[in-house]
């Protein structure tokens, strides 16, 4: 007797992360020289990919849909902005660290409350809290600069003073810096989702009651996922502000939250790589759509079409091409002895 198990290489093998990172690393010089203007979009794609990757540990793996993750994008961005404005910090590494810490602190404060709620209540609560922060950025303009925001000039990367680099070198360095970050954070995330913690999170998503019967603390697991996603999105927020050279309340607005949700769904929330692919493709679609006045209409129609036609996301197309791998297992002797009922 032989048992055949179907395995999905896209979900279970990390080599596809390496492939994507390699493609992205090779693509940049080509995009830079042949598609002028799109190189910035690609950099945006990488940064949003970090955010979407963090979002998906909460949505795809733990099953909590947040409509307020722009909260952490804003915190990351304003952490960088405040460090520059009030402390005179000019180093990208410190911005990123500041963004991560600020997100972690706020996530700890609100997380223990919000993770008690699931489904629509969680989504509304997150939307609400994010909108509170957004309104505070607007209203306390003497601290935050209001709708004008805070301008962030080119920072020092890895200790290299920004003044010593010309614009093109800076863009290259910034791209590969972000890509390296995506790779490191992606690798860490991969290890986490395949660790006992990650499996426990999936158990919580699949069946909360059974997971708690096994002995998991549901709120604690949800809190871990929440904190993790907050840190990732916070880091992306800092990078985003640095890449845009400005932080405005717009980055913390609900539309940014919608964007994160959108790109994750677009790529496929059920796959580890879904958010990354979704983020990159989304940024290209968006910048094409934004050339038209009615880009929201286009985006809205696309989102409805994707849910209707490809509910598992764009990456499910790749899955169909690669297919499943069948692994044949020869059951061991002791299993055959007791369990042969045929």
């Amino acid at each position, binding site marked *: 007797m032989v048992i055949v198990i179907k395995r999905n290489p896209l979900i279970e093998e990390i080599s596809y992360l390496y492939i994507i990172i390699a493609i992205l690393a090779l693509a940049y010089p080509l995009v830079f020289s042949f598609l002028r203007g799109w190189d910035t979009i690609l950099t945006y794609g990488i940064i949003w990919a970090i955010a979407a990757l963090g979002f998906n540990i909460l949505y795809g793996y733990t099953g909590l849909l947040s*409509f307020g993750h722009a909260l952490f994008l804003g915190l990351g961005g304003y952490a960088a902005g405040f460090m520059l404005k009030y402390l005179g910090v000019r180093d990208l590494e410190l911005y990123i660290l500041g963004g991560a810490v600020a997100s972690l602190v706020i996530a700890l404060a609100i997380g223990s409350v919000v993770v008690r709620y699931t489904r629509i209540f969680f989504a509304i609560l997150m939307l609400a*809290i994010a909108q509170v922060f957004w309104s505070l950025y607007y209203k306390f303009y003497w601290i935050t600069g209001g709708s004008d925001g805070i301008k962030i000039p080119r920072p020092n990367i890895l200790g290299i003073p920004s003044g010593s680099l010309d614009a093109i070198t800076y863009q290259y360095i910034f791209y590969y810096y972000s890509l390296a970050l995506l790779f490191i954070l992606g690798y860490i995330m991969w290890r986490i989702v395949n660790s006992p913690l990650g499996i426990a999170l999936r158990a919580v998503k699949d069946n909360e009651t059974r997971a708690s019967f096994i002995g998991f603390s549901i709120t604690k697991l949800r809190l871990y996922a929440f904190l993790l996603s907050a840190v990732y999105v916070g880091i992306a927020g800092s990078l985003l502000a640095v890449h845009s050279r400005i932080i405005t309340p717009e980055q913390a607005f609900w539309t940014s939250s919608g964007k994160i949700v959108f790109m994750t769904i677009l790529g496929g929330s059920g796959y580890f790589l879904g958010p990354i692919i979704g983020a990159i493709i989304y940024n290209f679609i968006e910048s094409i759509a934004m050339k038209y006045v009615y880009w929201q209409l286009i*985006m809205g129609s696309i989102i*409805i079409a994707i*849910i209707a036609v490809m509910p598992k996301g764009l990456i499910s197309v790749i899955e169909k091409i690669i297919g499943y791998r069948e692994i044949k297992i020869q059951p061991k002797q002791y299993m055959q002895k007791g369990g042969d009922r045929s």
Partner: protein
Amino acid sequence: MVVFEDILIRILNIFYGASIFFLIAVGLNLIYGVMKLVNLAHTALFAFGAYIVAGTLMKILAGFVELPVGFLIVIPPIAAGLTVLAVSGAISPLLTYAARKSEDVQLILTFGLLLIFEDMFRGLWGPVPVVSNEAYMRSGMFSLGGSQYPLYNIYVMIFVGGMVIALWLFLHKTRVGMLFRATSMDIEMTSALGADVRKVIIGAILIAGLLAGLGGGLYVPAASATLGMSIEYLVYAFVIIVIGGLGSFVGSLIGSFIVSALRTLSLAFFPELELALLYVVAIAILLIKPEGLGGGKGW
């Protein structure tokens, strides 16, 4: 006596705000009740009503000479309500499709619908706010001691008050209303007893659309129709629902009053913290009474 007048005007403002909120929230609750769908695009219907009145109907009516005020305050909102009823009828297949999906997919689908609506408004009525306050201005003021209060607001309160009573009577004293309540309590059992729940669902979508459009039409003469209005009111509507309880008639009423009161008071005393205060209250209620203040009482 200035203090007394001040308080009276604030109370009137609270009632006025609550009237508008109620028309939005009750539709959202009705839809959630019968089809368990959280419709993020619902406030877009409210904005639609506002745009129809301010952007189209009043422009057409401006061509006629001196229409009586009574006409201006009654006909446009009702026309807007009926138009939005038709619009929500048109989107009802999408809503029933969404209702069959899981909750996160529902949110995403209706969010997509919201985006489409927002750009439709931009396409039909342009990006700048549309103002049309003729009905409001010509209704005049009445004096409260030394201060003035717009009569239009009083009219809106009376109109909505009538709607609240009519809706309550409909839900509690008619056979169709009973079907609505039964469906929101237990859709399978209602269906098993022989009621056509699909008709109830369509009916709920249409009524919710009518009320939202009416609300938009009543609201706009005293304000303006703007892009982003859907989101602004969506945020309020959610706080109302959280405070009042999801899927409850009484809850919509209580929630509307509390949100309107909080909003009026915070705008008067500490405008910076308006939204923050609303959410702090909403979060507190979620923590203390997750089913909402009107929750469990049903319709």
